[in-house]
């Protein structure tokens, strides 16, 4: 792999051990993946934040680093709401460690914003073709597909290294030839809202890490694509997809139609809802916002909760910045007894383990909750989730 004179100097330790290790990581990964060089990135999003996931070893390593990130950088969701962790049922011993991890990242100049939706944040606007180093699988999918920016699914240490150096290896989805669709997915029925998450859940499992080109009968909004991509990245490992006549890269390039085709019928989507329908009325928690809610999604939830008082634990997850900009909407949601949680989510927080069965409208959450939180999950539309929460009024 070609390195510039300055990159060689960093590798030789002339700028200290932190940068030396960071560039060693980038170079080793670049070699593994056949990168010809390192390329500058516009921003970084770093995984490995929840104390539940990285533990004392991760905390120790991050604390050992010295330096400042070269590009705007944010974090993945943490294991708890950084302000209201007690209200979530998180023990103080966990909270102390979680805050130490956040501080260690903050010392490196990383913005303390813990979210899987960095594209909603100030200073993180992104355009077609721009190169970034993001880690969270749904964020990677959104950036690549809905915006047409370019990123691989970076690991925690590699995204952190990329942030410290300001570059990442020029391989994978940074290259034109790897962004071409490799399979067509024809969806035979009209779909809306949570159907997109169900679709992603099915398709991810079927295609693993191919690049699908969707032919849809419906017209997806960006939040629909957000659900689709998140689910496919969770049940499969799809990091990039195209939607005919919708997604920007597909509109700009003339992709050949892939030879391989799969067809999705209405029954398959229905089956995702039906698979756990036996839990209807028996869930003890409802959790929305996987990925984190946009302002529009918060408004929709607030409207549906109007006049209600929920009878079950009810979480709405979003980024702190979006919440801070939506004060009125948050108040309306919380008036119903629902909790708006920031910095975290139902998948990575140990607080989920306190329940038995979680109602979700997210294909990603539906996929991860049983394995990661050891509880059941039930798939439902947003309206059905609201119903599931009951009403004391």
């Amino acid at each position: 792999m070609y390195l510039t004179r300055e990159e060689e100097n960093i590798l030789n330790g002339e700028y200290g051990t932190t940068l030396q290790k960071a560039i060693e990581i980038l170079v080793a990964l670049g070699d593994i993946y056949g990168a010809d060089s390192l390329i500058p990135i516009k921003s970084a999003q770093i995984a490995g934040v929840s104390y539940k996931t990285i533990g004392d070893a991760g905390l120790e390593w991050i604390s050992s680093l010295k330096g400042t990130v070269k590009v705007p950088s944010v974090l993945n969701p943490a294991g708890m709401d950084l302000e209201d962790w007690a209200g979530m049922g998180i023990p103080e011993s966990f909270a102390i460690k979680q805050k130490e991890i956040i501080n260690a990242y903050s010392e490196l100049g990383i913005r303390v914003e813990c979210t899987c939706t960095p594209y909603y944040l100030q200073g993180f606007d992104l355009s077609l073709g721009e190169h970034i180093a993001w880690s969270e699988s749904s964020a990677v999918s959104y950036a690549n597909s809905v915006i047409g920016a370019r990123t691989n699914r970076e690991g925690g240490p590699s995204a952190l290294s990329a942030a410290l150096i300001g570059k990442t290896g020029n391989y994978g989805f940074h290259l034109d030839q790897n962004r071409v669709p490799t399979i067509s997915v024809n969806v035979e029925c009209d779909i809306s809202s949570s159907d997109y998450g169900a679709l992603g859940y099915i398709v991810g499992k079927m295609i693993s890490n191919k690049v699908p080109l969707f032919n849809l009968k419906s017209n997806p909004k960006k939040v629909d694509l957000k659900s689709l991509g998140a689910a496919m990245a969770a049940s499969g490992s799809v990091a990039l997809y195209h939607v005919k006549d919708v997604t920007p890269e597909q509109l700009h390039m003339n992709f050949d139609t892939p030879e391989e085709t799969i067809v999705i019928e209405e029954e398959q989507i229905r089956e995702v809802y039906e698979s756990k329908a036996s839990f209807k009325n028996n869930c003890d928690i409802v959790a929305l916002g996987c990925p984190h809610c946009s302002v529009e999604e918060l408004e929709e939830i607030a409207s549906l909760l109007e006049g209600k008082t929920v009878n079950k634990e009810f979480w709405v997850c979003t980024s702190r910045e979006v919440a801070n900009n939506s004060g009125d909407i948050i108040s309306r949601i919380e008036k119903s007894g629902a909790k708006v949680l920031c910095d975290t989510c139902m998948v990575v927080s140990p607080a989920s383990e306190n329940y038995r069965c979680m109602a979700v409208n997210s294909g990603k959450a539906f996929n991860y909750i049983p394995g990661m939180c050891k509880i059941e999950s039930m798939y439902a539309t947003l309206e059905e989730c609201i119903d599931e929460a009951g009403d004391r009024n």
Partner: protein
Amino acid sequence: MRQVIEIRIECRSISKGEGKGPVLSTKDPISFLGTVDPETGNIIDPNHELHGKCIKDSILIFPYGKGSTVGSYVLYQLKKNGCAPSGMINIDSEPIVAVGAIISDIPLVDRPNVDIFKVIVEGDEVIVNGSEGYLEITGSK
């Protein structure tokens, strides 16, 4: 009379440094998270071929890593606890083990230019040189 055999095998450098130790080899990929106890270096996964063995100070040979990216931090913890291998050899390194080896200063090479599983014998002493990209086997017949 026993004959001492020394073989040098060219590899690809992944993580710098040099380490030496007795060979411990497996054809089972290793997921460091869940398979290895970071406090002792013992293989605790009952489904793994090396169950019951200890990787501390060994030259650990395995095809590649797998599983959670947190596995990188398990390697770091092993090193901090003094229970890490002296060096590692992969057939084809992947990011979890590559990054783990680099942040922990454990020498790692991959792509040996021979079938390493056919050449290595239990009891061999091996040197892994991650800086230059080779390994050296000292065995006896």
